[in-house]
């Protein structure tokens, strides 16, 4: 981090990762200029909350007052500032324990390594990977075109989830009007030739919803219509050609909101 001094704004609005936050908070302890910036910017960020003010249910007030009546306050400290207060360390993304398996863990480690390289996101630019056959490149181009069209639908919805333990998100994009659903992710590691990623729609038993391999750093796959009614969408790694039912644990799941 060579530009720690310029991070105050991003820090205050929560745009730093947990690690960057810790680094910046260490910096804050020794940098008065940044501390002053943080105090200033906090006043501005705090004002933003007024644009979304909402009335909570009355029961919340009773619950809060009841709980504080039974809660001891912490003693005042002479010179401890909140500015150094560390973020609660809850940044571990939990996957359902029953779904965790060694394979998934090693996949995620690989994803983390890839993540360190950095990506351009859902770029539409053709990814001129020398290894890609012309056909694969064409397929990738048409998927991006399809995604672009889907994103322009006026009823487009997106539902994002996070790949546990990496800083990357996968997103389901749907439009009822276009009758199309796609899954997009960046940063999925390449797989051996005999493996593919497979998407599943889950509504009771998982149903196959499409297989894909990353193209460069992006993965885009058209999902079956079952995506519109699924409770959740999951991704697993399967043998080439895909499976009729999952043979490994999900490396990603996203719960679809009810509509």
């Amino acid at each position, binding site marked *: 981090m060579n530009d720690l001094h310029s991070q105050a704004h991003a820090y205050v609005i929560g*745009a730093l990762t947990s690690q960057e936050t810790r680094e910046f908070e260490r910096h804050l302890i020794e940098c008065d200029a940044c501390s002053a910036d943080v105090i200033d910017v*906090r006043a501005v960020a*705090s004002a*933003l909350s007024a644009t979304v003010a909402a009335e909570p249910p009355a029961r919340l007030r009773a619950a809060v*007052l009841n709980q504080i009546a039974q809660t001891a306050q912490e003693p005042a400290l002479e010179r401890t500032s909140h500015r150094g207060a560390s973020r609660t360390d809850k940044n571990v993304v939990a996957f359902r324990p029953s779904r965790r398996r060694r394979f998934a863990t090693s996949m995620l480690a690989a994803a983390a390594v890839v993540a360190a390289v950095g990506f351009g996101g859902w770029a539409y630019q053709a990814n001129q990977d020398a290894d890609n056959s012309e056909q694969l490149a064409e397929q990738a181009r048409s998927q991006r075109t399809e995604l672009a069209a889907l994103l322009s639908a006026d009823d487009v919805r997106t539902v994002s989830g996070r790949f546990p333990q990496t800083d990357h998100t996968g997103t389901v994009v749907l439009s009822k009007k276009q009758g199309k659903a796609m899954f997009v992710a960046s940063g999925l590691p390449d797989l051996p030739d005999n493996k593919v990623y497979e998407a599943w729609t889950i509504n009771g038993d998982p149903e196959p919803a499409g297989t894909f391999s990353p193209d460069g750093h992006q993965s885009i796959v058209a999902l079956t219509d079952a995506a519109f009614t699924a409770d959740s969408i999951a991704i697993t790694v399967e043998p080439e050609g895909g499976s009729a039912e999952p043979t490994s644990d999900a490396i990603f799941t996203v719960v679809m909101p009810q509509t």
Partner: protein
Amino acid sequence: MRASRGSSPNQKVVLSMTTVTLPPAWAPRLFSAQARPRLTVVTMPSPTAPAHELPSLMAKVSAGDERAFARFYDATVRNVFGIVLHVLRDHAQAEEVTQEIYVEAWKQAPKYDVKQGSVSAWLNTIAHRRAVDRVRSSERRTHREQRHFEAGTGRLAPDPLDQVVANDEGLRVRAALEKLSEGQRTAVQLAYFEGKTQREVAEFLQVPLGTVKTRIRDAMQRLRTHLGEAAS
């Protein structure tokens, strides 16, 4: 505008509800004109304690005064609950996290130091941080339906909450947001209200990370100028 006042928990608060088309606020020009969503505006009674009373309330709260804390809650909870609800997109979770925030505020109150900023800035910082932590720390994140930005253009889809509260401060801040460029506003929106990191914002908008950093910095500086002293 003005409904019943008072801080009794059982007192009925009269709200008037109307459905209007808001002037562009967060997302002017992000909507095409015909697609501008209709938002339900709930007009709230004024907070029971005005902002300038917060420091004296806070002093009592710091000394363990539970009644003062009740007034402190009444004066601040709409903004706190609003930001939490906006970040989490889930009413039940927002209630849970808001309760945690106020318990935390109660516990930390004796450590509050005015040199670190105003009472509301202190509280809203705790609130925003808790909400973002919750979003990032749990796979419940996946329950959230996120606002959708059309990649590359930053078009914002209708807010699923479809509800904003009209209040003087909110409208004033909205006006300040209007003065930002669309790119600046979008970057702040995605980071502050969606809990995205700069990198995620960059990925989402397909712009370089450096651009996002610059937009966030410029946006916050301009907001500060427009809001002036009253920002806190």
